[in-house]
């Protein structure tokens, strides 16, 4: 969607209208909603492609396999043959392979079983521990608050509430979230 006005700035540069590959080169990686893995590629090929821009940093194939050991076992399988949770791990691993400075996580829990969501969230601190700024878009408010430092609620395109994740009660946040 082309923006009508305003600007998106990252590290002092405007990235408005920049090619997606350029944005990745600058250090922003995304885990898209619905994961969107490459279905004709194996797990490992998906991860390798994530590192296509070759930014230097801590994340390598070995490191991703260390955080998600199950992916190493299944590295030669087609990525979309994995379970939903494992596919989400591939999507996260693929984004990390570009060694981003900012990680965008879009609807991490979408379409996943509650127990799987719990596992994925349990792994997040391991990832964020690498000093990675993360923006998480999530409908599972409680879980999102539990892993974040700051939050912002948006209602019809405008901020309805924002602040430290531990500074507001659940009621205040749901009021802002539902606009009541």
């Amino acid at each position, binding site marked *: 969607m082309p923006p009508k006005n305003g600007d998106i700035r990252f590290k002092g540069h405007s990235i408005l209208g920049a*090619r997606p590959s350029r944005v990745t080169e600058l250090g922003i990686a995304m885990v898209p909603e619905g994961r*969107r893995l490459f279905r*004709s*590629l194996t797990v490992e090929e998906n991860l390798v*492609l994530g590192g*296509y821009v070759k930014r230097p940093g801590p994340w390598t194939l070995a490191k991703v396999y260390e955080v998600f050991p199950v992916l190493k076992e299944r590295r030669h399988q087609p990525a979309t043959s994995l379970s939903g949770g494992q596919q989400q791990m591939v999507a996260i691993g693929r984004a990390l392979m570009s060694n981003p400075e900012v990680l965008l996580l879009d609807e991490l829990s979408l379409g996943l079983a509650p127990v799987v969501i719990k596992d994925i969230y349990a792994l997040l601190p391991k990832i964020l521990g690498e000093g990675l700024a993360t923006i998480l878009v999530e409908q599972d408010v409680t879980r999102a608050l539990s892993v974040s430092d700051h939050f912002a609620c948006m209602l019809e395109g405008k901020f309805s509430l924002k602040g430290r994740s531990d500074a507001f009660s659940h009621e205040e946040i749901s009021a802002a979230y539902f606009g009541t």
Partner: protein
Amino acid sequence: MEWVNAIVQGILTGGLYALFAAGLSLIFGVMRLVNIAHGDLIVGAAYVALAVISATGLNPLASLVIVVPVMAAIGYGLQFGLLNRVIGGNILPPLIVTFGLSVILQNLLLQVFSADSRKLNAGPIETDSLKIMPGLDVGYMPLLTFVAAVLIIASLQFLFYKTSMGRAFRATSDDGEIAQIMGLDNRRVFAWAMALSLAVVAVAGVFLAIRANFDPFMGPSRLIFGFEAVIIGGLGNLWGTLAGGVILGVAQGLGAQIDPGWQLLAGHVAFLIILAFRPRGLFPRID
């Protein structure tokens, strides 16, 4: 024995059809582009070979060393400069542009090379044949064409599934948006795919021109054979494309055996029968 001969010759002819079709299959697989000018590009490659041979005196098969890179460069430029502008989203604009390109190419070839039909002379290899048993001779040229088709399809298969370039092709084909986020430049990926397609077209054009007379207007009928082979084999499956070419060749051979006038018709009928029972082709890979 006449029938066995018809089948064997049909299989070998199928190799040529697979060469027509492989480039088409590749382009459709990577970028969902239906290249209406594909047949004219095959004929164009034959004329490029003609020009190279008259300038250098090379044997047509040796001229491939020049014709293949020339056609690949043309493919890269064509995709980067023209087709990338119309690709993505609606399937109709690229269809119309390649149709226009087809008309332009035919008239350009007519202007430069005249309407006279030409042929490339590859020397004694054209008429020599291998005697397999009484009543069954296999010409070296058809055999070479078939072997070339198998080797090219095996190489494309290897490139697609075992190299980083192939990984980029498959990723872009799966989800172009996400591939771009990963840092792939889809304009260049598409340009490389077209370069590869026209490299195969170069081989197809030279083999076609050694086998038969060619003129500026025979492209569209080669395109039909290519399309039929791709669709019989199933979209996105290169080995399927080879099978499609062979089925088409055998059907034509058997048709001709019944009555020489039935040769082309038999091929089209076989295509229609397969389309009626297996609308997605025999071995489809792409939904």
